[in-house]
């Protein structure tokens, strides 16, 4: 039987891959992923929290775009959210997924922050990773604050009103807060418009490049190993390939996180209160979202000890000092040589974390 001199035909999928590879260099990327390895040890579980935070951000990005289709800032803000929640097919689901993923993202970021802190993953050469992470967390909290007002119901209105009083107390900038953020003496349509611009344009414009920078640094320096693991001889340290092993585990965690969002969003959908009425009395027990509760309670507690304006300044000073301490940690404990400095960073970090938890629980108990 005669044999053909023509090569065997390529499968369609293979052809598409070759076409893309010639233009995008996919094979190089695959080879790089195959060589990249991720440390495996008793604390590997904490590596997933950055990825989980990223997933929640992606969920918010997608659901946020869908909400944009129906949301109308300004005078009709409340009515448009009412339509999304009660009239549009699956509008309630998209809104609930957006809100739940926002809260879960803040939670995941805090877990990520403190796991990085206690695994000392801020040390040389990862300082910029730590600072960019802190920046991302601050932006996420601003996302939360600005997004909270957008439905313009009673709770959103009064929570924002109370929230804006805090920067308004700082001498020198109170006028600026009124003009720039609130858009007038009272929270109103102009505020919603400004918060909307902040939430969907300004913050994403700052957040996305910073996120890109953070991910670049994670990629460049790889996963840090905790000091106890780093002290082990190289032969005793275990690693697994990033592709496919770690990626498969990461995807499994994403799947779990996605289930958590879906189950919470479907079984506990985000409700909408009554339309904001500036003349109505503030709802009883008005308080900020849980991730601002520790600051809120700190101001309340210090205000009792030091009454008046001095107390407010002292409270904000304490909060500022804790934030500055977190930012300075890579400078306090730059590398493994400084035993005493390492202890200050660890115990200081633990104090901040415990303080936040205690103040948050205390805040809710005191409502």
């Amino acid at each position: 039987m005669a044999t053909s001199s023509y090569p065997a035909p390529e499968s369609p999928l293979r052809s598409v891959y070759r076409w893309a590879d010639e233009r995008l260099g996919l094979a190089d990327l695959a080879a790089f992923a195959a060589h990249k390895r991720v440390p495996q040890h008793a604390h590997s579980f904490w590596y997933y929290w950055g990825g989980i935070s990223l997933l929640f951000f992606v969920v918010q990005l997608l659901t946020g775009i869908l909400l944009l289709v129906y949301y109308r800032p300004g005078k009709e803000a409340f009515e448009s959210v009412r339509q999304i929640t009660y009239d549009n097919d699956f509008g309630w689901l998209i809104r609930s997924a957006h809100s739940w993923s926002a809260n879960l993202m803040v939670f995941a970021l805090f877990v990520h922050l403190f796991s990085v802190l206690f695994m000392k993953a801020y040390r040389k050469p990862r300082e910029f990773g730590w600072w960019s992470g802190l920046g991302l967390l601050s932006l996420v909290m601003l996302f939360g604050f600005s997004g909270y007002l957008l439905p313009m119901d009673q709770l959103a209105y009064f929570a924002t009103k109370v929230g804006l009083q805090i920067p308004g107390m700082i001498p020198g900038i109170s006028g600026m807060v009124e003009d720039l953020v609130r858009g007038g003496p009272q929270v109103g349509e102009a505020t919603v418009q400004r918060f909307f611009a902040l939430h969907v344009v300004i913050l994403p414009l700052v957040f996305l490049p910073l996120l890109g920078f953070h991910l670049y640094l994670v990629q460049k320096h790889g996963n840090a190993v905790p000091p106890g693991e780093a002290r082990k001889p190289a032969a005793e340290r275990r690693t697994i390939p990033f592709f496919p092993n770690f990626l498969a585990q990461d995807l499994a965690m994403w799947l779990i996180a996605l289930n958590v969002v879906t189950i919470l969003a479907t079984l506990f959908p985000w409700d909408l209160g009554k339309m904001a009425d500036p003349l109505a009395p503030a709802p009883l027990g008005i308080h900020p979202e849980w991730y601002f509760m520790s600051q809120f309670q700190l101001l309340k507690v210090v205000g009792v000890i030091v009454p008046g304006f001095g107390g407010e300044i002292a409270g904000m000073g304490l909060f500022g000092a804790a934030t500055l301490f977190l930012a300075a940690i890579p400078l306090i404990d730059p590398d493994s040589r400084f035993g005493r400095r390492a202890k200050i960073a660890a115990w200081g970090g633990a104090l901040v974390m415990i303080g936040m938890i205690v103040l948050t629980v205390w805040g809710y108990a005191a409502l």
Partner: protein
Amino acid sequence: MNYPTWDVPLIGSVWVVGAIAIFHVMISHFAVGGGLYLALAERKAVREQRTDWLEVIRKHSKFFLILTGVFGAVSGVGIWFSIGLASPESTSALIHNFVFGWAMEWCFFLVEIATAGVYYYTWHRVDARTHQRLGWIYAISSYGTLVLINGILSFMLTPGDRWLAAAGTGTEPAYFWSAFFNPTFWPSLALRTLVCCSLAGVWALVTASRLEEHLGELKAEVIRWSVRWLIPSFFLMPLAVLWYWSEVPENSRHLIQAGVSTIGSGLFTQVTRATLVTAMTSATILAIAYFLAWRNPRDFHLGHAVAVVFLALAATGSTEHAREMIRKPFTIGQYMYSDGVRRLQVAELNRVGYTTASPWNHSLDVGQLMFRGQCLNCHTLDGYRSIRRLLNGRDRKGIANMLAILHDQPKTSPYKNFMPPLAGTPAEMDALANYLNHLANEQQAVAGVSRGATHP
């Protein structure tokens, strides 16, 4: 009103039944699908002369015996106990109509439970052929219990026109087979059979994931064989759901659709939400089964298998919850309402009174008696479907207006599709309005109403 009411604070009697039933469904469907799994797995092992497989199957049959024989049987009795307390009228109606069916089910069940024990304890004690026969006897008898229970459960949603025409005449049991093979019997049986196969695979993953590391090749084979049990569901479940959907009453379809556009129609939009949870968790099970179990069977550990079991529990729970909810406002479709009042009785009760014939009316006031008889079956005071929350700050007049809507059931009533008509004379309605006003506006906690034991 012939029976005492069972007052369970916070979760309500409905969730006592629900929690036991969801747990039972997880086990009992495994008992059916797992029987078929054991029989086919042993057949394969004997044909291929795989002694290593036989040892895995023997271990799995021990796990199977303990789980189904202990937890399945106990929770099954628990269902009887709880439905008898929570819905005595419905339970009584079912027993009167299906006593023959339940007698058959008990026969199958006795064979099933006895064979499960014999099957495990005769490993390596009887010849392979006899042992395989035992496996098949178990599989067939356990499937028999499913067929019989399915007939009764599907009857509760769609009793069928012939049986309904005889309802209330005293000749209902003569229409046993018509009631049994009711409109949703076959699609429901198809759905439950697929669930049984899936749960057989899901639970088998628990045993297979525990195989030691040095048995890597065997572990991979068993895990992949178990994953195959999920394949029929993957392809056929959407079709079976569409078939079932086409047979359920219009009102039930409306309930499933109610939550698509809103969360605002009271608690009944939960049906849609529960259905979404089923879809999400089922899709996740399939994803884990493919990516973790099928693609990487050697790395599939007990933690993964337990996660799949919990996901299956969530899927089962939400499906059973939705199935129960779409029957509203009936417990037996078009025949008996969820408060135990028969549809044909309502006009008579409106004329002579709901509480007059009650043996308990000497100890409780009429309003409380009405509340216990017609509200407490589905609502609690402060917990699940809280009466205080649902009254939503209404005053005495607002409460009376709402009760009038529930009683008269005008076409425009928002409650009509979900809640039974409120039966009783004007004086009883007035007494109920007073009692609800007392609960909602005059006191924060009524000690008596949450202590079922102190009242009949």
